[in-house]
């Protein structure tokens, strides 16, 4: 694992940039633990101050320090993305591996459901969910719902790899040596699909964070828990742009763009790494 990381850092500019961006965002989110006051509190500092040495990113019209607010928002947003990605990865892995390995009617049934989830428009459904839940919609619940809706595309990807693994000789060997389906899937096939799982994790996080920002900007989430989208929502509510409090919108925007570009570059470079042909090309170019 460390060898792979070293290789990537040395030969892949995209991975380097991505790692720096994501690292910076992570660092900022860790700082949330050192905040001088709780994130939900308002009017703890003078409102509407521009960025200055005492308030690095300025303060909001609600009397919050943008720097600390942002670090909380980043922590929640990243946590949200990770939760969605983790749960939906488990679903995608279980369904993709099982579907690819068993074939037959299990495969057909699972894939029909899978294709359905790929095309169903999620945003109206999520809005409907918010509509009936209103104030009881916590971010954890939203994460669970999105995880249940966000596994389909990657399950198809994993399935296609599992199908090719199934026809390899080692699968038959393990079958004849008396391993159960579960053992074959977990011990033999899982290691082969893990690289794909890592790169789809990044994409899934980008997807879920983007959707959360969209929902939050419209005010369709639990806006009292600070997230990036929630910050933009409150800034809009106070017409920050028109009032000239640009730093309130600018810093969350920059942060979310950093997350997106960083994760995207990490996913791209990992894809390159998994595909040996392009890996050869990039190593050849570097030397």
């Amino acid at each position: 694992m460390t060898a792979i990381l070293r290789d990537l850092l040395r030969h892949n500019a995209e991975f380097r940039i991505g790692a720096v961006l994501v690292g910076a965002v992570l660092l900022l989110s860790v700082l949330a633990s050192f905040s001088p006051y709780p994130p939900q509190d308002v009017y703890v500092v003078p409102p509407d101050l521009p960025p200055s040495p005492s308030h690095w990113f300025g303060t909001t019209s609600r009397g919050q320090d943008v720097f600390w607010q942002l670090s909380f928002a980043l922590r929640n947003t990243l946590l949200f993305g990770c939760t969605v990605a983790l749960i939906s990865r488990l679903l995608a892995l279980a369904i993709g591996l099982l579907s690819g390995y068993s074939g037959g009617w299990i495969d057909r049934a699972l894939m029909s459901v899978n294709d359905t989830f790929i095309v169903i428009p999620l945003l109206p459904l999520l809005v409907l969910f918010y509509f009936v839940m209103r104030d009881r919609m916590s971010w954890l619940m939203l994460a669970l719902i999105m995880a249940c809706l966000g596994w389909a595309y990657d399950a198809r990807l994993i399935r296609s790899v599992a199908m090719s693994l199934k026809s390899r000789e080692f699968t038959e060997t393990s079958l004849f040596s008396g391993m159960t389906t579960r053992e074959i899937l977990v011990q033999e096939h899982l290691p082969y699909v893990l690289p794909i799982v890592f790169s789809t994790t990044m994409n899934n996080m980008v997807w879920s964070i983007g959707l959360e920002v969209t929902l939050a900007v419209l005010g369709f989430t639990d806006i009292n828990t600070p997230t990036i989208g929630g910050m933009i929502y409150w800034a809009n509510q106070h017409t920050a742009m028109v009032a000239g409090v640009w730093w309130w919108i600018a810093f969350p925007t920059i942060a979310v763009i950093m997350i997106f570009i960083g994760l995207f570059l990490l996913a791209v470079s990992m894809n390159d790494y998994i595909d040996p042909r392009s890996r050869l090309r990039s190593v050849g170019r570097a030397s």
Partner: protein
Amino acid sequence: MGKRRYLAYAIRRLAQFALVVFIGVNLAYVITHATPIDPVEQSISAVTYYGNTAPAAIEQMRSSLRELYGLSGSPVEQYLVFWKRILRADFGPSLSAFPTPVSTLVTRALPWTVGLLTVSTIVAWGLGTLLGGLAGYDRTNRGLKLMGVVAMGLHPIPYYILALLLLIVFGFLWPVLPISGGSAMNLPQTLSVDFVLSVLLHAILPALSLILIGVGSWFLGMRALVSNVVTEDYVVYAELAGVQPWRILSSYVMRNALVPQVTGLAISLGGIFNGAVITEKVFGYPGLGSLLVDAVYAGDYGLVLGVTTVSILGVSVAVLAIDLLYPLLDPRVKVR
């Protein structure tokens, strides 16, 4: 492909279509029944909060809502009534625009959304695919390389941010384009030249924001696909045999890389309603997205359910149409 095999394929796709609609509508049913709050009283109090409504009208709303939510009768009856109403496209009267039926509001908004999003999705797809194909084939071209870098940076920017940026630039800094609405207010919505021009003018900014976001990912996708095809033996062979470059590009490389792109187009046409919501909200465009958001703000349950159902239906029809058409256009698509 044989006629019979195509027919079998078409039947399977139709079954898939039915399944999508079935699962989608059931999800909507489950979601509305999972709520711990009484949705009917909530909706009614949301409406009556703003003004006096006649008691008879409230009673009508209440019974209509009870039926719509499927809260009257046994669970089986509830479920059947729900489906019956969906199949008749009867979502009751809208609460926020009482007594206009939800179906009227939806039919009024639908053409706007479908027009704006279909055109901009297809334009983005065409541009991105073409340029991406060229970029994958000709790796030395400076302009295309730059385009790759721009696409890389533009692609992950959240839609909302870009739309806001366009609004600021073309609405305030250099105010040449209308920033809100679907057409000029004072024009009657008939097929006059003025009206059509006004619609086109109002569509530029929302369409531009959708296209800018869309082109990047199609570009990157096609470039990756083409650069894989270019290293195939048959392309190298064709090059050695002296086939003209543009022929190699158009009929050897592009065509083979196109299949996954078309599948992607089907999926993203399916995602149209995801894009619609925030685009239309930002630009005040009178489509389904605006309708949905306003319905949520107003607590209009029937309208929310109506828009959701129509989105599910519309998306499934779009995907079905592409899936059915594609094997006819390209015989190499393997019909599974």
